[in-house]
């Protein structure tokens, strides 16, 4: 199978102890140990006031990492196709709806219902940047990061245009937390563009491989990052971000689905700005 290739032109990151990709570089490079402090996505300044009020945690998180990746790539987001990947959408909103629906003659909040769609972050983002470019939103449970990466890379091959990939997950409150114990929110955004030979951060080449061929997935040496990688589906991309932060040529293997992995060959870009 021929590999899919793309240049990485911007990265966004937000998670516990990871305030942004720029701020987290020393932790990702292994120069500083990871320290777990709760993720705190800011209110999205891009949104008009009405939408900003309605934006819940999953929308705030996705927009924060999308913003960082777009700013780093210095690209006009109004023409940018997007792929939003999340294992399960917004847990607190789902919980609030289920609580209301358990009452007799339930009266739902229209905003809560509108925000319950899996593509709510994508919808808010495209409103914020006034973009009519194509957008998709998907889930592959614990393999959601890998699924989003394949969808984004095949869109780049098909359309020859950049794609913004946003992978993000937010935790469920109890009682759903017990069934799906995500410890905190984490989001990763990659601004990917057709491979042009002069990548800003690095050039990716990915292929699907059967797990028995490629061996175990790449882990994070830092125990805090490794815990995050194992517990939050979007954080499955952390080994790739570590490689990008180190700026070295390497191979990264990500778990995707049972018995199926993604093998990523990373060729570093020019000197970091």
């Amino acid at each position, binding site marked *: 199978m021929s590999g899919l290739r793309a240049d990485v032109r911007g990265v966004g990151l937000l998670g516990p102890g990871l305030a942004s990709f720029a701020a987290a570089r020393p932790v990702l490079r292994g120069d500083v140990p990871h320290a777990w402090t709760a993720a705190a996505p800011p209110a999205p300044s891009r949104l008009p006031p009405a939408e900003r009020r309605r934006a819940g945690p999953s929308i705030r998180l996705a927009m924060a990492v999308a913003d960082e990746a777009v700013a780093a790539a210095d690209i006009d987001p109004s023409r940018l196709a997007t792929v939003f990947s999340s294992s399960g959408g917004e847990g607190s909103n789902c919980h609030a709806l289920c609580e209301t629906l*358990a009452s007799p003659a339930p009266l739902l909040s229209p905003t809560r219902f509108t925000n319950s769609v899996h593509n709510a972050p994508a919808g808010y983002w495209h409103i914020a940047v006034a*973009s009519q470019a194509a957008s998709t*939103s998907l889930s592959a449970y614990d393999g959601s990061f890998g699924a989003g990466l394949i969808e984004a890379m095949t869109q780049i091959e098909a359309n020859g245009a950049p794609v913004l990939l946003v992978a993000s997950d937010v935790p469920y409150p109890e009682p759903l937390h017990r*069934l*799906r114990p995500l410890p905190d929110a984490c989001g990763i955004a990659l601004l990917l563009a057709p491979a042009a030979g002069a990548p800003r951060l690095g050039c990716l080449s990915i292929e699907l491989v059967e797990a028995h061929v490629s061996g175990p997935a790449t882990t994070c040496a830092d125990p805090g990052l490794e815990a995050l990688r194992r517990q939050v589906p979007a954080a499955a991309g952390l080994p790739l971000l570590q490689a990008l932060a180190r700026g070295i040529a390497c191979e990264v293997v990500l778990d995707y689905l049972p018995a199926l992995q993604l093998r990523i060959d990373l060729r570093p870009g020019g000197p970091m700005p």
Partner: protein
Amino acid sequence: MRPLAVTEHTLVTALGAGRAATLAALRAQRSGLGPARFLDVELPTWVGEVTGLDEVALPAPLQVFDCRNNRLAWLALQQDGFADAVRAARVRWGAQRIAVLLGTSTAGLLETELGYRRRGPGGELPAEVRYEERQNTYSLGALVRRAFDLRGPAWVVSTACSSSAKVYASAARLIEHGLVDAALVGGVDSLCLTTLYGFNALELLSPEVCRPWDAERRGLSIGEGAAFALLERDAASAHGWLLGTGESNDGYHMSTPHPEGAGAIAAMRAALAGASLEPHQIGYVNLHGTATPSNDAAEDRAVRAVFGAATPCSSTKGATGHTLGAAGGVEASICLLALGDGLLPAGLNLRTPDPALRVDYVGENRRAPLRAALSNSFGFGGTNASLVLGAPR
């Protein structure tokens, strides 16, 4: 794009299970909608409920997936020899060369909603609530991938009411770029409390049967449905062909379409361009046609901007109801039936055509040789997808 063979397809909606039952209902202009009698829901609305789901049993190894949505999926997989066709494709291409790309909006959320009514003393949910295999968006994909022991890439698109149209576009890209040789696509959405009470909260539910393109249309009727199609890189014979796909976003409002249908126009044009067809070569447009005042008005403008007013169009949601995340797949299957049968299915429940809507709306079944049809699917979050499907050669 290079045309992809639809080597098998099937669907289950309120019209019945399988292609023959669906085509018979379309030929008879019969609607599957009725006043809502779903669980204890007391809403003055009509729904398209699939009967018999209580009797559907998943095989023992897949019991962990048991919920209304996955039962509906399972029922559809048993129709029209679809399961045999998937097994044959697995032999032909290999398990790792077949993708599973499906759409849903709410997956098995119903069982979690009902579980919240029976929480224990510590607030815990009853054991029937399972997150991974029932509630999670991907549960549908996991069920199908495991049922056929497929080992290729898989995901579930959840872009509200365009979900199962967009998977056709993803599948075409994966096949085009050599990651797989075939893809099992489609979508499943089943009735649940969130969508019924949610659309009610938005005042988008019709108190009577939905009436797309009618002057007195008052909103949508929710339906449930499942549709599956098998796309293959090539085939000696096919039920039809996927010729083009188009995707766009409105970037306008979360729950109201762009009034001029700007995003819809872009999606239709992209699908036509992918198919290398001119608008006049499309013999039938299956409209998104939800029967909300704003959707039908915006879509009428968008379709006329692309096609003019001469291309026959109809919404089949008066027959099936709006099957939400399954609608794209269901209506792709209906287009394939129309193409194979030379039937332009009527848009049902039309009493007084809205004079402000000026496409050639098919109010009674027509017969015509059809070579290509276009299907529209639009959703919350401003997401748009259009598919161009071709007749069997």
